[in-house]
């Protein structure tokens, strides 16, 4: 990834939440241009299409967890979804997301902690580009399962490497073995198209507890 902007690298190399917030503060305004045009970032659209194949209604209540600048919300909105909520740790990214005018409620929250949402609040949770080094730990899956209703879906991307090394795989397998959720599909496909980088796209159905 020779052309990867320094601002992107900074988000991977952050060692504290403060550094991560700083990294995104410096990048918020240029993020969409740098990722979509610069690197061929197709993750949001691919994930939105995957989730759309499973949801029954465009009225489904969807949480965009780690929404960043709102690229996923925009993709879902273009597919006809009108009840999307945004959540991110970075105020600066949330400001850009809000300006896209595709979200209902906007929440600032740290996904490494317990979320303030009630159990079974959402029909679906979508999380694109946030499950990676230095961002969010694998315990977040437990929270996604809790806030998504049984029969609802959790759709996310995870980069190969981080998938195995960062404990995501272990947690996913363990939650599936415990029948918390059931894998519907896992595909490895284009993520940063211009950089020839792929990611795993996963969709799980939440089971009755």
């Amino acid at each position, binding site marked *: 990834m020779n052309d990867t902007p320094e601002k992107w690298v900074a988000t991977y190399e952050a060692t504290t939440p403060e550094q991560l917030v700083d990294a995104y503060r410096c990048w918020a305004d240029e993020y969409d241009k740098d990722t979509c045009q610069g690197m061929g970032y197709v993750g949001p659209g691919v994930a939105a299409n995957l989730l759309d194949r499973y949801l029954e209604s465009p009225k489904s209540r969807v949480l965009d967890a780690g929404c960043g600048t709102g690229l996923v919300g925009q993709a879902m909105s273009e597919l006809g979804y009108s009840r999307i909520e945004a959540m991110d740790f970075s105020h600066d990214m949330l400001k850009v997301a809000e300006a896209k005018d595709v979200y209902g409620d906007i929440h600032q929250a740290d996904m490494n902690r317990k979320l303030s949402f009630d159990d079974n609040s959402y029909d679906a949770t979508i999380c694109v580009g946030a499950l990676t080094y230095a961002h969010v730990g694998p315990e977040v899956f437990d929270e996604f399962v809790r806030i998504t209703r049984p029969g609802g879906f959790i759709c996310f991307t995870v980069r190969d490497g981080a998938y*195995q090394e960062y404990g995501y795989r272990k947690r996913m*397998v*363990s939650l*599936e*073995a415990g029948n918390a959720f059931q*894998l*519907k*599909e*896992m595909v*490895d496909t284009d993520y940063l198209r211009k950089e020839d980088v792929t990611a795993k796209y996963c969709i799980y159905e939440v089971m009755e507890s």
Partner: protein
Amino acid sequence: MGSDNKTLDKVYTATNHAELMDAYKDWANDYDSDTLGSFGYVAPVAAARAMERVAPGTDVRILDAGCGTGQVGQILTDKGFGDIHALDYSEDMLRVAESKGIYGSLMQADLSKELKIEDDAYDAVVCVGTLTYGHVDASAFDELIRVTRANGHICFTIREGAYEDYGYRDRMIALEKADAWELISMEEADYLKNENVTCKLCTYKVLADGAPNA
């Protein structure tokens, strides 16, 4: 499933191997035209594509487990793979497979039992249309892992419904939890396209230090 598909009904409702072999004996000669024609059996194409995605080259040694008449072997051959070995329980199906002239060797064996194949004998295993009602139970995974070398791949289809009802899902997860293999991809794919039946198309990588007897 159309009720006029008597042959297919017979295959799915077999309660023992004698009945299943009987069903395939009656069907062997018409199998390719029936499945490719009226049922729209597209799983072999999707599985061969999945194998092509993960195989490091076309010289990999592949076991076609439950080869039937050799449809997957034919597609893999067309893609340039040249070291494919056939295994099936039905002598009649194997005869049709052999006539295609694409397999390095053919073996009659029961996937529900221990295979007379050495550990790590293959770089990859493909198993299409075999993990389904009335055929092979979930313990077959343990043997497929055993005969595949570490970091080799296993691609297979499981007919929808059978995935959960027949114990496949539980065994797949248990084997992953034991680090016997790692899931690379799981897709919903058409199975019998003209009958609107889908399957799970799965690709696993066999891990080095797994414990298959979990």
